[in-house]
């Protein structure tokens, strides 16, 4: 259940923030409001009238506009063309010649009225993301919306662009429009919202005012300190296994995703990377695994340089990898469980060689793994698509853990997995640590990170803000996850080390303070709470 009896009201002229972590249910809620999903229960009232939205057209007709995280813009069109699409101004009657001048004029009118500078003749694909977002907003506004929903709008913006967007939102609200602003970033919420609804696990947890202290908001967002009861003995870390220095990685759009990361994982310890999805964790892990070339920096395992090696070589050299989205690139759904279990070892003895497979060995190996890892399947030859999510994940974990490892990397290891399998996977991860493997766990589930890790690195906006112990109060970790470093928050923290961003080594204190992430800019204006 993604939304569990959520009640929410939005007043005109109000900026209403929906605060929550990934998977809390915010986007699902808004997708129903925009007609992209149908609610199972409950009703939607607009201006007191009950409405049913079967498609975005209905929502637009009722005065609701939405700016998605993934823009609905045609890249090769100009701004004016995108905005005009579907509601074009034409002349010449049935022939429908586009009235370029009127279309442009409409764009400029709205743009001026709301203070959203856009160039009607620019090609969307050439625009920076912030400008594209403005185009989406103008597009919604030209259709006379009263309620504008913005889904994680600042996820893709630079600090400067974020400031501009917040200003726009203020002016729109002042003009009588209502805005619903979905985010996980605390400081923005406090800067702009008139009311805050915190959603966690599909339920409304609280409705707060922006005066609420940050740590209270953070704990509402991530939950009270509950320990994940993972049975483990204290870690005995050994040599440095994985050493990442000054890593810089770009994402698919060429935007910097990992912005100077230093990290060390030792043998026999679990390093957990906490943070909301989309702060560079994905790209970091992909760079380590050779799936994404880094722009700069080094990645070494036992002093062997991994950068430049193929993924196959990296896997062979004793690195295990559980990717974050098993249905995307973790398992081959059409293959059997047995085949998936040898997806990266099929051409190595005993499962096979460079020419042929050894079906008997594969079958025997599968039988053993199914038993060892408690994989619930009708048979090792059943297609993996017949397994539940948890069991599919166990297949991936079994696959990776079935060979000698120096380093084990698991991204979102229990996403979409049932309770029983979660416990099992967690216990195997700890077991791997106990035999001396260096373990790196990336998870947006704070419970998981706190339970598993011996050290926690919090990642925000491509940088490691701090590395803390798992005993740290959750509110503090929540703050870090939302971009507020210990130096700014007015809370005592037990911080192991506060990591200055890479590249600032040798710079003056003033500069490095200025570089300590976007959190610094926003907070400097606000002052302390």
């Amino acid at each position: 259940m993604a939304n569990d009896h959520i009640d929410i009201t939005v007043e005109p002229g109000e900026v209403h923030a929906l605060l929550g972590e990934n998977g809390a249910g915010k986007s699902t809620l808004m997708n129903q409001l925009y007609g992209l999903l149908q609610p199972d229960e409950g009703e939607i009232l607009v201006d007191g009238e009950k409405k049913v939205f079967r498609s975005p057209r209905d929502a637009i007709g009722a005065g609701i506009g939405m700016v998605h995280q993934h823009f609905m813009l045609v890249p090769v069109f100009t701004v004016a063309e995108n905005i005009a699409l579907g509601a074009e101004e034409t002349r010449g009657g049935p022939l429908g010649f586009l009235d370029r001048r009127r279309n442009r004029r409409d764009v400029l009118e709205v743009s001026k009225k709301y203070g959203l500078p856009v160039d009607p003749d620019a090609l969307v694909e050439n625009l920076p993301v912030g400008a594209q977002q403005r185009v989406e907003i103008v597009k919604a506004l030209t259709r006379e919306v009263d309620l504008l929903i913005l889904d994680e709008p600042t996820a893709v913006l630079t600090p400067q662009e974020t400031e501009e967007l917040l200003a726009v939102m203020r002016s729109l609200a002042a003009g009588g429009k209502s805005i619903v602003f979905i985010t996980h970033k605390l400081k923005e919420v406090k800067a702009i919202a008139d009311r805050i609804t915190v959603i966690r696990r599909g339920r409304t947890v609280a409705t707060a005012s922006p005066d609420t202290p940050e740590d209270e908001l953070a704990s509402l967002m991530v939950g009270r300190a509950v320990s994940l009861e993972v049975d483990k003995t204290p870690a005995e870390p050994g040599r440095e296994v994985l050493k990442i220095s000054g890593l810089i990685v770009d994402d698919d759009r060429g935007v910097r995703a990992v912005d100077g990361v230093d990290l060390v994982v030792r043998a026999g310890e679990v390093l957990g990377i906490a943070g909301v999805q989309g702060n560079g964790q994905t790209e970091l892990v992909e760079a380590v695994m050779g799936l994404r070339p880094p722009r700069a920096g080094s990645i070494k395992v036992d002093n062997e340089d991994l950068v430049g090696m193929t993924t196959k070589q990296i896997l062979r050299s004793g690195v295990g990898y559980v990717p974050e989205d098993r249905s995307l690139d973790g398992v081959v759904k059409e293959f059997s469980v047995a085949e998936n279990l040898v997806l990266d070892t099929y051409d190595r003895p005993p499962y096979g060689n460079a020419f042929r497979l050894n079906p008997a060995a594969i079958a025997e190996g599968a039988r053993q793994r199914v038993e060892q890892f408690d994989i619930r399947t009708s048979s090792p030859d059943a297609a993996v698509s017949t397994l539940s999510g948890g069991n599919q994940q166990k297949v991936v974990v079994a696959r990776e853990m079935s060979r000698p490892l120096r380093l084990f990397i698991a991204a979102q290891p229990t996403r979409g997995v049932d309770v029983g399998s979660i416990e099992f996977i967690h216990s195997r991860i700890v077991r791997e640590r106990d035999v001396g493997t260096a373990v790196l766990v990336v998870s947006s589930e704070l419970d998981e990170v706190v339970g598993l890790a011996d050290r926690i690195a919090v990642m925000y906006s491509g940088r490691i803000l701090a590395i803390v112990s798992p005993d740290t109060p959750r509110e503090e970790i929540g703050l870090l996850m939302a971009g507020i470093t210990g130096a700014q928050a007015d809370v005592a923290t037990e911080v192991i080390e506060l990591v200055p961003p890479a590249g600032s080594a040798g710079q003056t204190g003033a500069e490095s303070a200025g570089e300590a992430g976007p959190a610094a800019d926003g907070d400097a204006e606000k002052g302390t709470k």
Partner: protein
Amino acid sequence: MSTATVEDLAEITAPARFWDRQRRLGAGVTLVGVLAIALFGSLAPSATARFTISQDASGAAISINGQFGAYLFGVIALGAGVALLAGVAKRWQTTLLGVGIVAFVLSFLCWQVAGKFLPLVDTASGTLQLAMPLILGALAGVLGERSGVVNVAIEGQFLMGAFGAALVGTMATSVWAGLISAAIGGAIIAAMLAVLAIRFLVDQVVVGIVLNLFALGVTGFLYERLMQPDAQKYNQPPALPTWSVPGLAKIPVLGPVLFESNLLVWLALILVFVIHFGLSRTRWGLRTRAVGEHPVAADTVGIRVRGLRYANVLLGGLIAGAGGAYFTLVATGSFQKNMTSGAGFIALAALIFGRWTPFGALGAALFFGFAQKLATYLSAVGSPVPSQFLNMLPYIATIIAVAGLVGRVRAPAADGQPYVKS
């Protein structure tokens, strides 16, 4: 945690590649220029090449010494290539590429025509004639593919068009009835393509190929059943008349080429402008392009994606079918089995080589038509250059284009993906 130490920072940024697109183009053109000089220049006899304005060999002509011309144009091509290698502003890139190709062709011609004559008017109008079905077929492809539906079945549409034109044209003793039937024939194949691809979500490439075979079989079958036994009743369509625009037809060179021709040629040329204008200036065009690039975005603003795709594919079928009429109403006077023999695929090549735009398709079709015309001319004058290699030109050019050797050739983003409303 350690702070970043200087020695650990390894810069792995990709250096600006030396062999970027412009340099690769330049290298290609330079090679081509060298080839022209070395091969054409040295082989060309030192006789006069005459490019005659009128039909007879002794009339007014542009003359140039064959060997000199071959060398000259080879050097020009080489120059263009070297300029590209050295690096020029981006806007000159296409021009230089064009100059290089044209110079190469001229060098080649100087070699081949040395000691003989090439009737310019005949060549030009023959080119236009040969290009006409290619233009129409490519335009049909433009309509479909810009909306996101891959159309490999142009060949089948040609065949049905040719057959329909012959059959109905003969039975009704009317060229116009034949022309209309040709369009309908193409539309039938297009309808099958549309339904199978859009409604039943069958893979569009597979559907196209199978429809080609289907059309081949049906037309061949009906040909053998009806036309072969009784050609007079079924297979003697009247020819499409050649019309002359009074006054304009008298312009030297251009006049006879452009203004003394048949309806289909004019239709093709007019359609190029109409479709270009339509795609870029009308609401229909904007929506079509949106549907082909980002159907989800189009859907969210209220555009009927599937309906638009159906309409465009059918319209394309009408146009391609009309193009098919060329084979039976213009080129020959009757239908033969499999008479299109791959022309539909050259039209597809023109579409791709022309980058899915009407004018690009026109240019590519003219280029390919010229290659075909040249092949006929060369075999007529007994040239050692084999005509088959000239006929390969459209295909090889398209491969080069698609392999990114002359830059990225990008289909509409949603081309080939059936739209499933989620």
